[in-house]
């Protein structure tokens, strides 16, 4: 059983007066698949490298399996790591690449062979074992990198953007393979990515990081349905959530700038907002593209939740259409049925599904309801 505990972990680089990672707290359970997600430079890789031991921890404690690991060398932490650029040893064959860690740990020849063959079979690399990395495709190289982690049977896998060097199609299939692998091996995994789709599809829990600060930790559905703040709301979900600056007046939200719309807030949500004293005050109102409707049925059923928008760009994606519109000066993206493809320039009526609306405080940018 391996848990990983990070308590008040800070990272400060030399010559930098700001912290790159600030007060990072996370308790990872055995067999859990954790994904760190955030924009580039947010500190997610730094945190992973601190867990690996490739970066020093400036403050705080890191425990692996209950033992403090702050000053333990990477080789003694019993972790396996997959790097973004594969980091294969170019002068060794695929077999030797996978066997390297085992040889260093003085495994017997038979044992090494058994483990490498097994990993090669799982990853479909058996016929490439004698090749050198230069003779492999990107996807195969990434598989070798995974294989190097698998053979070790290490209790923890660390993966640093392992798919970002692959092309789109390969990335999707390798994503599925990593998911399958985790189901098979049940190894505690910490995975770093800037791709929110990878985060959503792979994670048991997602950690969203921005500027070295944890924004929210939760299951994919939690962070999607109840984003803790404007950043999380905008980061998770594609296309991103739409935001409007509004004022709450007489149970309705009114567009702050031009009064382009006046929409009543559903009872439950209204009560929370009023209890927290937002009546007559400014709010950030967020609505996901899939909660913006153009179907006639919806528009007729909820006529007071409708705004008029001008389509600027219309993207037909086959099964669906993404309409990029303007409501007054504010951008609005709507994900609608492919049949509702509309030419740019047309004015369209769009209904907001207010039960799925999100409200944030304009100053703290934190979610109001929870």
């Amino acid at each position, binding site marked *: 059983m391996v848990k990983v505990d990070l308590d008040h972990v800070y990272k400060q680089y030399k010559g930098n007066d700001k912290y790159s990672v600030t007060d990072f707290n996370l308790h990872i359970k055995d067999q859990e698949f954790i994904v760190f997600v955030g924009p580039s430079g947010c500190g997610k890789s730094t945190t992973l490298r601190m867990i690996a031991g490739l970066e020093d921890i400036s403050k705080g404690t890191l425990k692996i399996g209950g033992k403090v690991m702050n000053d333990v*060398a990477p080789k003694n932490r019993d972790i396996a*790591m997959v790097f973004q650029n594969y980091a294969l*040893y170019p*002068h060794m064959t695929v077999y030797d690449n996978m066997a*390297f*860690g085992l040889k260093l740990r003085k495994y017997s020849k038979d044992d090494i062979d058994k483990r490498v063959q097994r990993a090669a079979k799982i990853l479909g690399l058996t016929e490439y074992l004698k090749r050198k990395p230069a003779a492999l495709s990107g996807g195969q190289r990434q598989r070798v990198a995974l294989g*190097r982690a698998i053979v070790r049977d290490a209790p923890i896998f660390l993966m640093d953007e392992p798919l970002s060097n692959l092309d789109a199609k390969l990335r999707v299939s390798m994503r599925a393979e990593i998911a399958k692998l985790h189901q098979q091996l049940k190894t505690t995994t910490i995975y770093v990515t800037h791709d929110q789709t990878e985060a959503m599809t792979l994670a048991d829990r997602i950690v969203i990081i921005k500027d070295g600060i944890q924004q929210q930790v939760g299951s994919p559905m939690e962070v999607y349905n109840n984003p803790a703040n404007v950043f999380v709301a905008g980061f998770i979900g594609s296309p991103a959530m739409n935001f409007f600056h509004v004022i709450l007046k007489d149970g309705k939200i009114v567009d702050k700038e031009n009064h382009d719309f006046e929409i009543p807030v559903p009872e439950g949500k209204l009560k929370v907002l009023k209890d927290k004293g937002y009546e007559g005050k400014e709010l950030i109102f967020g609505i996901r593209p899939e909660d913006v409707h153009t179907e006639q049925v919806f528009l007729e059923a909820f006529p007071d939740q409708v705004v008029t928008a001008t389509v600027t760009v219309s993207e037909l994606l086959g099964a669906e259409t993404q309409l990029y519109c303007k409501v007054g000066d504010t951008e609005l993206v709507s994900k609608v049925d492919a049949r509702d493809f509309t030419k740019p320039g047309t004015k369209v009526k769009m209904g907001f599904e207010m039960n799925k609306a999100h409200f944030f405080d304009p100053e703290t940018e934190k979610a109001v309801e929870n």
Partner: protein
Amino acid sequence: MKSKGFIEKHWGWLFLIVPLILQAIFFYFPLVQGAFYSFTNWTGLTYNYKFVGFNNYKLLMMDQNFMKSIGFTAILTISLIVGEIVIGILVARALNSKIKGQTFFRAWFFFPAVLSGLTVALIFKQVFNYGLPAIGNALHIEWLQTSLLGTNAGAIIATIFVLLWQGVAMPIIIFLAGLQSIPDEIKEAAEVDGANSRQIFWKIELPYMLPSISMVFILALKSGLTAFDQIFAMTAGGPNNSTTSLGLLVYNYAFKNNSFGYANAIAIVLFILIAIVSFVQIKISNKYAVD
């Protein structure tokens, strides 16, 4: 239009004509000429010479000076190859680590490379003839009280030291570049895989540096086999011809003994030696190089 096809196919040679001519005049022609004279008894002073066939080469095999010179050149070359590679890698690794004044040290260690060989030799000649004996006298170290250049072994060691002191500067820079071409991620991966710094050096860094090592090997080989100016200035080949390198021997025979043909025979042997060793070395290092 047959001629037009010819021009279209071969017009690229036009760009090669100038370098080819230069190469021919200054390299291939002297090479052939040298080989030609090695079969004559030309003195280098007159226009008269006779063909002597392989006579010069036969004489060479019996020439004590040539054998001694081969011996010294071999010792010198091996010392330079081993010394430049080992010391070069050690210093490059030290300079590649995070130390204070890194830029200063990098420039400092490269400094000998920009000096003229003659200058270096003259400075060290003073050191060996006056500097070290003074220290020996002051500290009462007997073997230091006379000049090292006065004894056979002392002169050989001193020569190797001076050539190495100057010769190692370039390898340091080459190895430093080689070390820096290794991606950090690969070393980190090895670290996570369980390698300690010694294992990382032998299993990761060294294979990565094979191309650099092979380049330094050839440089050291060439500088050892053709060593001339430093030795000429410092010991002039003495004492007892103990530091006469092949280069110096060729010079002595050609310009002191006026046996130009014979000297050319030595030069040709030297050329063949370098060619064989370089060829073998390139073959071997290609086999192990990192793709």
